[in-house]
């Protein structure tokens, strides 16, 4: 014990630094094929497993990097926080610790940017923040983004990744579905393009509002998309659901999704769709 203490005290500054640099946490495990992957390799491969092609869920910053032209993203200046309508004791603490842990303010980031030179309003959700759930802050940011798209006459892109409405804000979260949907009717009436990109997972109140309302609905391969989860439906109706139920591929076959696009092709697909739809503008 004493020897340990002496060792610690005598540790030169330089060595201390080296110790911090040891690459702990630089490896990730693929949950599908169990392969251990070097995080840098994973990053370069847009968070897709180089071994089996499994799609990892993406952090907002990584998604922005992969879609938006470098240094063009300008986050909207809306700095707001939930009023904690159900007065839950732990909820504000939970949000605070999540902000510190994830480095993001909330489950969505909204702003303007360029995709291969095309101006867009873009919202990106992150399932790493309280399962990407939609409370008043997420609802407000998305609604504001829709309004900005109308004001600036720009196409709107929303990357959905969410478990649904945020339980911690109760009925207020439910109302965000009505709020975002109503805003989208105005976008529609303004004749502007809205592309919804569904990523894993897209569920609940997010599926049942803005995520389903794109003029064009794209999805990433293998993404799970639905309203209620498969297990809940099976238990409720007492029936076995078909294989592949709620996968992007199943939904494409059944007409809900227009196209499944691989992550590496998303940026080019989006810019092509945007430029293609510009023709009708006055």
């Amino acid at each position, binding site marked *: 014990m004493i020897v340990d203490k002496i060792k610690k005290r005598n540790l030169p500054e330089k060595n201390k630094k080296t110790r911090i640099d040891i690459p702990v946490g630089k490896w990730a495990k693929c949950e599908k094929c169990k392969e251990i992957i070097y995080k840098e390799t994973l990053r370069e491969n847009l968070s897709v497993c180089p071994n089996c092609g499994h799609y990892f869920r993406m952090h907002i910053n990584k998604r922005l990097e992969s879609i938006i032209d470098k240094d063009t993203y300008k986050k909207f200046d809306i700095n707001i926080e939930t009023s904690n309508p159900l007065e839950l004791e732990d909820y504000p603490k939970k949000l605070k610790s999540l902000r510190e842990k994830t480095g993001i303010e909330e489950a969505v980031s909204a702003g303007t940017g360029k995709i291969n030179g095309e101006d867009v309003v873009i919202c990106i959700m992150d399932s790493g923040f309280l399962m990407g759930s939609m409370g008043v802050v997420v609802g407000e940011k998305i609604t504001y983004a829709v309004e900005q798209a109308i004001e600036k006459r720009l196409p709107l892109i929303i990357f959905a990744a969410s478990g649904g409405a945020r339980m911690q804000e*109760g009925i207020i979260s439910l109302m965000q579905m009505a709020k975002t949907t109503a805003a989208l009717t105005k976008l529609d009436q303004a004749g502007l393009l809205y592309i919804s990109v569904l990523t894993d997972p897209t569920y609940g109140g997010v*599926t*049942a509002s803005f995520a389903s309302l794109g003029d064009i609905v794209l999805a990433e391969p293998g993404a799970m998309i639905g309203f209620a989860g498969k297990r809940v439906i099976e238990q409720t109706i007492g029936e076995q659901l078909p294989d592949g139920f709620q996968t992007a591929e199943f939904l494409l076959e*059944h007409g809900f999704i227009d196209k499944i696009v691989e992550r590496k092709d998303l940026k080019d697909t989006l810019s092509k769709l945007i430029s293609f739809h510009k023709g009708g503008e006055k």
Partner: protein
Amino acid sequence: MQKKGDNGEAIAKLMFEMAKLEVPIIAIVIGEGSSGGALALGVGNKVLMLENAIYSILSPEGYSSILWKDSSRYKEAAEKMKLTAKDLYDLKIIDKIIKEPEGEGAFEKIAGNLKKEIKSSISEMNSKSKEQIVEERYCKFRNMGEYIKLEN
């Protein structure tokens, strides 16, 4: 081909179309209303609610199962969720509570109260233009949910 697993889309599309309706919508919660199915029919210019009805994001069982991974805590969930007519009135989610007197002739009395409220809602909105009806409903849902503005 039959579309499967798209009730989420049905809810979204219904709210989307209802937001454009140029006639007044009166939604009344008369029993247990929860989740997207209730909301899809609840996007009214006026949302009325019977005194003893409940309206919530999810059933208390589902809520406690998701939030605490324990559906047996449904009573506690029901207490916390603010799902009573009074709570929802205070949260500005509903516009009016319809009294439900008990005792003899209760049903007739409640129906009478409801009828009176529907009539007065209609006559109040009758004087409004189509644009006003759409815009007022939009503003009502646009402003749902209070938040705190933070200093930069």
